């Protein structure tokens, strides 16, 4: 279990907040002039925490995630990832898992996972070993030689997660990673993600439309309003871990879900 030890980046070595957003605003130039997309976003995600962002479509949560990943630049405010600003993507600090399978169809599963290491110029044997290790972590041992079209939707997203983790970044951003999956697979994948998270101690920022998924996964649910997106509420989820499917039937789970639903429903 050597890789477990290596992955087990203990929170006390990391800065207190893995992700810190202060006074962030974003205005984008639309056809009819400037459109405010995000206003007054303050967000602190402690190291090792699992934060889920929910909000209506078009509230700018994906934009926010792109900015956390260094893929887009905000108009105002500051973002600190792992203690430093992130002006451009840095896969050693922030891994990203996208909604649709953004795997490359011309590469096998293991080649997809090692892709970030190829870009970095890592030696072949080293990156292959590391990629295999990640595939084992996400439960895809022996599937490395398959092409994406030979894998199910859930397996593809496992590969995407393995790719996001391959450079061992302290922060993992996930943009509706299970949105395209069927309900059963989605539940299983949520559970699997929690297992992987508990084995790697990553800081996760996860976007979803599903309130059940949000409550099931999160330490804290951040509720955003419709455009211009701002933070309406932060709902701490104090359900014990490890989470189980039975918890979804409890009153507490229902109350948390209800509280979030009220916030989203009441905004125009």
């Amino acid at each position, binding site marked *: 279990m050597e890789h477990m030890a290596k992955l087990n980046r203990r929170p006390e070595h990391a800065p207190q907040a893995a992700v810190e957003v202060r006074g962030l605003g974003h205005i984008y130039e639309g056809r009819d002039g400037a459109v405010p997309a995000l206003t007054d976003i303050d967000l602190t995600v402690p190291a090792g925490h699992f934060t889920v962002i929910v909000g209506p479509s078009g509230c700018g949560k994906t934009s926010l995630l792109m900015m956390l990943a260094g893929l887009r630049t905000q108009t105002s405010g500051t973002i600190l990832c792992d203690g430093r600003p992130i002006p451009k993507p840095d*896969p050693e600090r*922030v*891994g990203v898992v996208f909604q649709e399978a953004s795997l*490359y169809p*011309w590469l096998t599963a293991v080649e997809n996972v090692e892709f970030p290491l190829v870009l970095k110029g890592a030696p072949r044997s080293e990156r292959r070993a590391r990629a295999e290790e990640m595939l084992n972590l996400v439960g895809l041992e022996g599937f490395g030689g398959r092409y994406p079209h030979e894998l199910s939707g859930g397996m593809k997203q496992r590969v995407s997660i393995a790719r996001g983790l391959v450079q061992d970044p302290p922060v993992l951003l996930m943009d509706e990673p299970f949105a395209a999956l069927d309900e059963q697979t989605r539940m299983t994948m949520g559970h699997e993600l929690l297992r992987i998270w508990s084995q790697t101690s990553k800081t996760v920022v996860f976007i979803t439309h599903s309130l059940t998924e949000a409550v099931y996964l999160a330490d804290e649910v951040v509720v955003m309003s419709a455009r211009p997106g701002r933070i309406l509420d932060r709902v701490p989820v104090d359900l014990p871990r490890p989470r189980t499917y039975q918890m979804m039937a409890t009153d507490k789970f229902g109350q948390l879900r209800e509280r979030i639903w009220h916030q989203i429903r009441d905004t125009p």
Partner: protein
Amino acid sequence: MTRPSPQTVRRLIGLALLIAWEAVPRLGLLPELFLPPLSKTLAVLWLDRFIYASALLVTLYEVAIAMLIACGVGILVGAIVGGVASIRNLMLPVFSSLYAVPIVILYPIFTAWFGIGSESKIAFAGVYGFFPVMLSTAAGIRTIDEQYLLAARSMGATLPQLIARVIIPAAIPTVLAGLRLGGALTIIGVVVSEMLTSASGIGYLVTMNRTILDSPRVFAAIIVVLVLSIAFDIAVRAIERYTLVWQSAGRRGASSSTAASARMATPAAASAV
């Protein structure tokens, strides 16, 4: 009773056509001027094998150079037109319209500029084959999934890495479909221009023998062109199989029909852009 496989049926149809080619003129159903028997055609092909071989060499040389020009320039221009939005908006409507023009009307101008030797054939066929290659390449690059690019950037890809590791592999299937069509058009371009104004090449043999009403030699030249075209098609298929191994891995059998429909869809998509 089991149904024969499509391959068996295809071979039987081919065999039937060959037999008909021999039998129809022999039975006097068609005059030999219209259709000389297969055996007679093959006999003159063998008799004149050195004439046909040297003509084929000329044609092959012209096709090879024209293909290099059509594919090279086509991929280059297509990549620029597909990749740079401002150039695309400026040029693509022009190229798409030009594609619809029967370029063969320009051939007299090509002979005026380049003479009646190989140069005019190469120039004409090169231009003829250029359009589908260029349009497919532009379509292939323009239709790359944004997610592929976004994911690569999130993994820290630089622009050269983005081009080499994402854009090129993602565009290859569409570009290959264009090369297949462009290559076929180059062969057509060379043979047609040889037929129009020339003193050498397979196309010239067709025209020359038709003028003197030597049907077997006309058909012999047609056989040579057929073999050339089919050989090209087999070669391109082999390249596709080798390059696109990921498309068919794990679903052989079922893959051929989807690959074929994808190929057929592409030229239409390319001309629609």
